[in-house]
């Protein structure tokens, strides 16, 4: 794993932005904490892969994107969806398997998508996003209106060959693709370094500018992705940004059941990443306090608002009608000429 640069000066954002970034991260955190409960109490039809601990990556990155930009997401896609402006109600309804879900209950947790907001879908196939993002970036370039396509992917996915293939196409065709590696050090129950040769960022260096940042610092992510996006919009081609971060929860909820007593990381390691000075949400809260943007009471209020928002989404999801079983066959084929 490459060491994040520490010499990048903290980029300045205005107070409102700092606050918005915090709120957005908190929304993801609280929403997923609620999913832990829902999953444990059997409310959800399928499994969930949680993003807790990595919120700064999605939020930092999406803060420099508009609804017209594209993203491709992963199996761990709730954070990307919400950060890119996806609707929490519709996402929860989807995860609950309801007709009111963003994908009408057909996709589920691993596949939340809102094409109208450029969210081309969370994807259950590790590495599938590379090519989809590259294709969308090609479309953006052909169109010539400065859109970019950002591909979120994990350190595990970086071993899929489509990573190189897509970097090659993006570089050769100077496409506005941002390859955003969420390097959390693990791929399911495998410590990624044990199956990885060399340094990930060097793979990208063969094709494009590279930046490795502290992925738990929302401002650092925002700055690095901001530079990449600016370059892409200006016709400067693709970039690679690697955000060093950590997955706090299991690969999926209830992973204990699958591990059968085995372990792939220590409780200490997890605890270390949850510390005040490492957890992205706590760090952002501390920064707002230190900079005098919010006081403790206001932070409390934000949190309370977010929690209320999450509970409303649960209510929305629960109240929704079950998915329509007749729908599936209708959805398979598009209209014909």
């Amino acid at each position, binding site marked *: 794993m490459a060491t994040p640069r520490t010499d990048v000066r903290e980029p300045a954002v205005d107070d409102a932005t700092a606050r918005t970034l915090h709120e957005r991260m908190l929304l993801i955190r609280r929403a997923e904490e609620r999913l832990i409960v829902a999953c444990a109490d059997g409310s959800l039809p399928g499994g969930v892969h949680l993003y807790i601990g990595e919120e700064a990556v999605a939020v930092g990155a999406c803060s420099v994107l508009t609804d017209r930009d*594209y993203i*491709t997401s992963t199996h761990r896609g709730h954070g990307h969806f919400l950060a890119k402006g996806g609707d929490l109600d519709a996402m929860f309804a989807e995860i609950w398997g309801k007709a009111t*879900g*963003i*994908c*009408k*209950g*057909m*996709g589920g947790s691993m*596949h939340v*998508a*809102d*094409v*109208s907001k450029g969210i*081309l*879908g969370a*994807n*259950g*196939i590790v590495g*599938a996003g*590379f*090519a*989809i*993002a*590259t*294709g*969308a*970036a*090609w*479309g*953006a370039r*052909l*169109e010539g209106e400065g859109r970019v*396509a950002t591909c979120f992917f994990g350190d595990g996915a970086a071993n899929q*060959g*489509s990573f190189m*293939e*897509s970097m*090659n*196409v993006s570089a*050769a065709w100077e496409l506005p693709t941002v390859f955003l590696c969420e390097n959390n050090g693990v791929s399911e129950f495998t410590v990624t370094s044990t199956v990885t040769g060399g340094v990930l960022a060097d793979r990208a260096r063969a094709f494009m500018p590279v930046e490795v940042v502290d992925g738990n610092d929302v401002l650092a992510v925002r700055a690095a992705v901001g530079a990449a996006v600016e370059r892409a919009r200006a016709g400067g081609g693709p970039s690679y940004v690697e955000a060093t971060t950590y997955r706090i929860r299991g690969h999926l909820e209830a992973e204990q059941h699958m591990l059968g007593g085995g372990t792939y990381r220590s409780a200490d390691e997890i605890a270390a990443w949850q510390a005040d000075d490492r957890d992205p949400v706590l760090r952002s809260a501390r920064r707002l306090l230190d900079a005098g943007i919010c006081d403790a009471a206001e932070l409390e209020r934000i949190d309370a608002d977010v929690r209320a928002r999450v509970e409303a989404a649960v209510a929305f999801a629960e109240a929704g009608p079950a998915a329509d079983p007749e*729908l*599936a066959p209708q*959805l*398979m*084929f*598009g*209209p*014909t*000429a």
Partner: protein
Amino acid sequence: MARKRLITAINEALVEELERDPKLIVFGEDVELAIMGDTRGLVERFGRDRIRNSPICEQTLTGMAVGLASAGYRVVLHLMFNNFIYTGMDAIGNQMAKLRLMTGGQMELPITVVAGYGGGNSNAAQHSDTAYSVLMNLGGIQVAVPTNSADAKGLFKTAVRGATPTFFLEAAGRGGEMGEVPDGEHLVPFGRATVAREGTDVTVVAIGRMLKPTLRAAKALADDSISAEVIDPRTLVPFDEETVLASVARTGRLVVVDEARDRCSAASQIAAVVADRGFDSLRAPVRRVTVPDVALPYASNAEAALIPGPERIAEAVRSVTEKQFA
């Protein structure tokens, strides 16, 4: 009407559709110099933004088609040989075939994938599969297998204008065959079979490249007073069950000819459909004339022995029209 090679008819369809829709993009390995001939001359006319040679990376090419379609373009991806479908299979099986459902209908995928299929040219196992059976099982994927120039043009246009991933498979050896092509706008609907030869004793469904040897067999059978009705399905997904069932209702017999390996082939599918929905009409076993479960060998004689030819087809037809089934 004018006589044109099948490959020229596709080329013409491409030119017309590229003129018609500025958001139509053609890409793939060597589409500029047009290794198959179907994309010849396009780059000179429409420029490299719209007609583009790609690197060799099928896994990403098929995925890019999905991304480009999501960004509002119509896509023609040329995969050259249909064996390379396996190379680029992830985005076919896991993305193209599923994303419309998985997104609750949000994603339209106007993607046409072109590839050559079939044997007969000593191209050996890795360049001679007939891969449509695999595609047919994947779900949201249409498959067209035109047998003549007019259908090639008309089906291609329908594929390109649609909103569903469609594989347009060209019989590797048939690009050079001539046929009439109607002038002006010509669209052939999917899911509509044609009767290539009328007959009364037995229905023979002949898929793609198998139509020609089947028609030859039908001619030979006519000399023996066996009247075979030959049906060209034109598209395998959707498949025109009604035309086949109506024919079997008259003939009482079915033979399906398919260049694919037998197991889980289109031939098996068609046989199964008729053994269910057409059972009451059947007066004889449903025969399949297919390639056995082998990879095609290189040597011409060994290859020829495996691909259905007029003799094997005629023999199968005879076996179900013999007097025990009269």
